């Protein structure tokens, strides 16, 4: 195992059983009653490693499993199979007690700062709660010092500590949730669409804050987003997901200048640009299939302009390209594109 990677994910699979109760599972088939499970295959066989101090972004359209991936890495969902390693130790099978020391190192920032902050708690209570929880026996004075320090570091006046979340704007609320994540001095932060609910001028403030915090504290980020221009701006490497599978993983510069996977190419061609003339975007036929019945072969085959019989039969394997890129595509492997 590489020593410079902080988080490593190996063949991660997360499925959700949504078949409901026993009666919902029973169906009539050819005059016989059969029991059937409906399974959402949210994350399928994903492997990657996140290096210390880098920002790995995961992009993809809604429903592609990027949030499930983030939550599984954090240990909020137990994976169906596969492994998650943190700093060389396997963490996906630990009990919640054994998980405790890792919880202070891994923190999460959620999408909607209106939903992720308890409206009945003051900022002080919100930010101090993880401090008290992870530092048993800490004195009130010390906790207060840490609260003030972390609030100043996210650009908020500690005077505001006794106010409630509804008294703050969206951008300030997201600062509070970042402060809560930073309060226990983590090494690794999972940010699940942290700026999607914010206005453009506020997005810039929060992104700058995230980048500053990374520089000061040498943080490692797993950044989930659907906004490709933001991802291009802040990431070291980018992973593209489609229907629960990894399509391509490459350094941000490489991915945006020369995308290899046909899905990445289509995705990038759809980004609108300010001042640009409307460019010809690659039209994908059809819709994203449901993750309940994954297509055979490559998951993208139904919409891919380069698909052939092999793509419809055989699941592609990831292949190294460029300096440190990965691409999962038969057409690239065969040199057809």
């Amino acid at each position, binding site marked *: 195992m590489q020593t410079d990677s902080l988080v490593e994910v190996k063949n991660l699979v997360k499925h959700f059983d949504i078949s409901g109760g026993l009666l919902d599972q029973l169906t009539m088939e050819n005059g016989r009653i059969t029991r059937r499970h409906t399974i959402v295959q949210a994350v399928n066989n994903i492997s990657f490693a996140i290096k210390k101090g880098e920002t790995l972004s995961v992009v993809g*359209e*809604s429903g592609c499993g990027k949030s499930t991936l983030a939550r599984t890495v954090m240990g909020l969902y137990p994976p169906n199979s596969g492994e998650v390693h943190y700093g060389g130790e396997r963490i996906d099978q630990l009990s919640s007690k054994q998980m405790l020391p890792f919880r202070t190192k891994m923190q999460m920032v959620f999408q909607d700062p209106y939903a992720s902050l308890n409206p009945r708690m003051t900022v002080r209570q919100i930010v101090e709660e993880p401090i008290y929880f992870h530092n048993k026996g800490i004195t009130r004075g010390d906790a207060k010092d840490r609260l003030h320090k972390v609030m100043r570091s996210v650009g908020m006046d500690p005077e505001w500590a006794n106010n409630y979340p509804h008294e703050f*704007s969206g*951008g*300030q609320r997201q600062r509070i949730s970042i402060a809560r994540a930073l309060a226990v001095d983590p090494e690794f932060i999972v940010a699940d669409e942290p700026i999607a609910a914010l*206005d*453009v*001028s*506020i*997005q*810039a*403030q929060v*992104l*700058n804050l995230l*980048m*500053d915090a990374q520089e000061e504290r040498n943080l490692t980020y797993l950044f989930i987003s*659907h906004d*490709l*221009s*933001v991802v*291009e*701006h*802040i*990431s070291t490497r980018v992973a593209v997901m489609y229907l629960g599978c990894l399509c391509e993983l490459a350094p*941000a*510069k490489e991915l*945006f200048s020369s995308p290899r996977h046909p899905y990445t190419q*289509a*995705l990038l*061609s*759809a*980004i*609108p*640009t*300010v*001042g*640009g*003339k*409307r460019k010809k*975007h690659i*039209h*994908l036929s059809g*819709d*994203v299939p449901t993750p309940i019945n994954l297509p055979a072969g490559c998951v993208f085959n139904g919409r891919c302009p380069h698909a052939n019989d092999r793509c419809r039969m055989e699941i592609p394997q990831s292949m190294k390209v460029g300096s440190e890129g990965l691409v999962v595509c038969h057409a690239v492997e065969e040199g057809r594109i």
Partner: protein
Amino acid sequence: MQHLLEVKDLSVEFALRTGALRAVRNVSFTLNKGERLGLVGESGAGKSVTGFSIIKLISQPGYISGGSILFEGKDLAKMSSEGIRNIRGNRISMIFQDPMMTLNPVLTIGTQMTETVLAHMDVSYKEAEKIALEKLKKVYIPSPRKRLAQYPHEFSGGMRQRIVIAISLLTEPSLIIADEPTTALDVTIQAEIMDLLLELCQTDDMGLILITHDLAVVSEVTERIAVMYAGSIVETGLTSEVTMNPAHPYTKGLIAALPQSGGAGDRLTQIPGAMPSLINMPSGCPFHSRCTICTDICKVEVPQLEANKSGTLVACHHADK
């Protein structure tokens, strides 16, 4: 030449217990036949209220407190509710943000489409169905006849928005108001919907008011743009001119705040602070507390829209004239 739509000094207020909240302040703009206008701003800037008030979709406690809305020569602001019903959904159609909320989940697409046709046109049910079918084809819905019998939940998000667009086309309107039509959709679907809207405007010579917070979308689709801030238009002109050479400090800030390709890892230019609350508006220029070139005059006097040398109207005391 007569404009298709001429909005003059439009003000919209909401009567709250604490006093009148002026959501739209003296907004004026024009739209010619077949022209595409983008209305851009952050949440709370008044762009949606402006769009809604054109077809009088403002309900209590909101009301149009001043100004006029001339559409094809008639003033919609003074029109009775019966009069506006012949215009709304007929001559002017609206597309909303979330297609799942716009469509009725318990009626088939066919019912919802023929209902609209029958409400506005004197045709038989057969003919109404024919029109519905034709419009579904126009928005590239595959196997439209089969689709007419289906319910909204049987469609994907992008398809649903196509159907909403098809419904808005049924009466062949001369103006479509689209309020954040792609905000709830993915980027690849967004590109398709925008291509479709652009194509329809060009082939049918339809006017479009595109309300969105996304400057990039506006800059690709529209010909003219109006940037709103705290209820007023702060800059308006040709889209290419405003996006390439923004004159108002707010527009400059908005464009600079977007991550640009090539500048990876650099800090983004941020606009400090947040938009003032419409209840407690500062004196003078509404942007002055966040502005980097603010001087004494900005704190006292409200700037008016004035043309600069490239023809863009800018409301700023310090913009180059």
